[in-house]
């Protein structure tokens, strides 16, 4: 399979705190990888290193063979290939749903406004929010905002999508609508790295599950292997607490 992301010996320190202590892994095209683990285990930091939102302290991250943390890398072009969805949605509150979605394609890719609007239209149909096209983010529920955020990231037609606990800030009844959109995306063959606490989603959708603890990759494998037959004691303890 085509390798899309390669992480080699990635470390990250915040002052004296060692958040990542040497991560090695790869992600292949069309693969859905879920990252699970206790809070503070470095999952989000790991994800944010993949598109350079965090500087690496050591090691390297290659996306399509390009080093993310190299000074000579055109980070803006690289990031436009990597969509990211945040826990807190981070929609632009001063722009309408349509403007949120068309901003990057028109400014970064030079897509014509008409085409960008058409693309936004199609994506809103896909996430089921076409009727909200002219709404402002504060007029939407959390689940709707997150679906718009997914549409905004998809508008750049990225090769990879990163999800940073996309349902953790949502009311329980809104989690499903966001997970459904993500599942559809996975079924269409999108390469996805998902940091999540939704074990049901990970089991159902992931091709591979990574379990992280204390800045290390403790265990990885198919959902069946990790959830049903965890090899490591730490994995077992974590799963006993959350399942």
């Amino acid at each position, binding site marked *: 399979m085509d390798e899309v992301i390669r992480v080699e010996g990635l470390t990250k320190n915040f002052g004296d705190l060692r958040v990542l202590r040497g991560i090695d892994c790869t992600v292949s095209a069309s693969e859905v990888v879920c990252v699970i683990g206790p809070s503070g285990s470095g999952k989000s930091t790991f994800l944010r290193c993949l*598109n350079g*939102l965090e*500087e690496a302290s050591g090691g390297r991250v290659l996306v399509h063979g390009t080093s993310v943390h190299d*000074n000579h890398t055109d980070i*803006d*072009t690289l*990031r*436009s*290939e*990597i*969509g*990211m969805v*945040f826990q*807190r949605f*981070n*929609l*632009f*509150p*001063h*722009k*309408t749903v349509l403007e949120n979605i068309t*901003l*990057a394609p028109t*400014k*970064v890719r030079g897509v014509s406004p008409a085409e960008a609007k058409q693309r936004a239209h199609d994506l809103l149909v896909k996430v089921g929010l076409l009727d909200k096209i002219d709404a*402002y*983010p*504060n007029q939407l529920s959390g689940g709707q905002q997150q679906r718009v*955020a997914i549409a*905004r*990231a998809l508008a*750049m037609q990225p090769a990879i999508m990163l999800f940073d606990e996309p349902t953790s800030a949502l009311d329980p009844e809104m989690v499903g609508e966001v997970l459904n959109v993500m599942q559809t995306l996975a079924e269409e063959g999108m390469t996805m790295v998902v940091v999540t606490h939704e074990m049901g989603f990970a089991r159902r959708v992931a091709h591979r599950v990574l379990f992280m603890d204390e800045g290390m990759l403790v265990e990885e494998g198919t959902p069946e292997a990790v959830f049903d037959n965890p090899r490591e004691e730490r994995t077992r303890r974590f799963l006993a607490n959350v399942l």
Partner: protein
Amino acid sequence: MDPILWFGWFRADIIAEYAMMFWHGLQITILVTLICITQGTALGLAIGLARLADARHSPARQICRYLLRWPSTVYVSFFRGTPLFVQILLIHFAVLPLFINPADGLIISGETARSLKQNYGALLSGVLALTLNSGAYISEIFRAGIQSIDRGQIEASRSLGLSFWRTMYHVVLPQAFRRMLPPLGNNAIALLKDSSLISAIGLAELAYTARTVAGAYSRYWEPYLTISFMYWILTLGLAWAVKRLEARYGRGDTR
């Protein structure tokens, strides 16, 4: 002209006699204020960004610290820490003659310098002093406004591939500007009133007009009350304009 008395004591005829002078003074005051608001805002944005400049790697890191952050901090400290009145005098009598001087001006000298100083000297130094001064205050408004924007907004924009400057222009500044409008409005009103200090170096704006009229008749209520009302109307107008802008840029506000 025969004395015209309003309410038994207000010599309206004095105001009528100098109406044209008040009119010219009003125009100068408005002109100075508008120039200083626009220039001061542009300068304030530049200084505000300079005070926030940072980079991850050398040599950009050192450049940001020593060529941007450090000088801009000193600049703001000086112009906020010394009286505007003193700054006006300093610029008019010390700084400007250094650059525009018939004998040996660094930028302009000879006959051009003589006529320029004579006709526009006070306007030039007044506008310069007021712009430099308000730029310092406005830079603090920009800095606070930019820093108040959630980091997540910047991260979302950058992760879409927008560059730092595009993120500033499309995402950060529009949101920061909305929050900055009330303090910017206050600043504009203060600037309008502070323009009266330029009368000290002989610029014929409103306060200068009032002093001239007062001197001619030895009457003080009439001219100073008149310009007080004129300033008042102008500040009300400014406050109204700011309110309109707030409504316009308030779209999508969480309230």
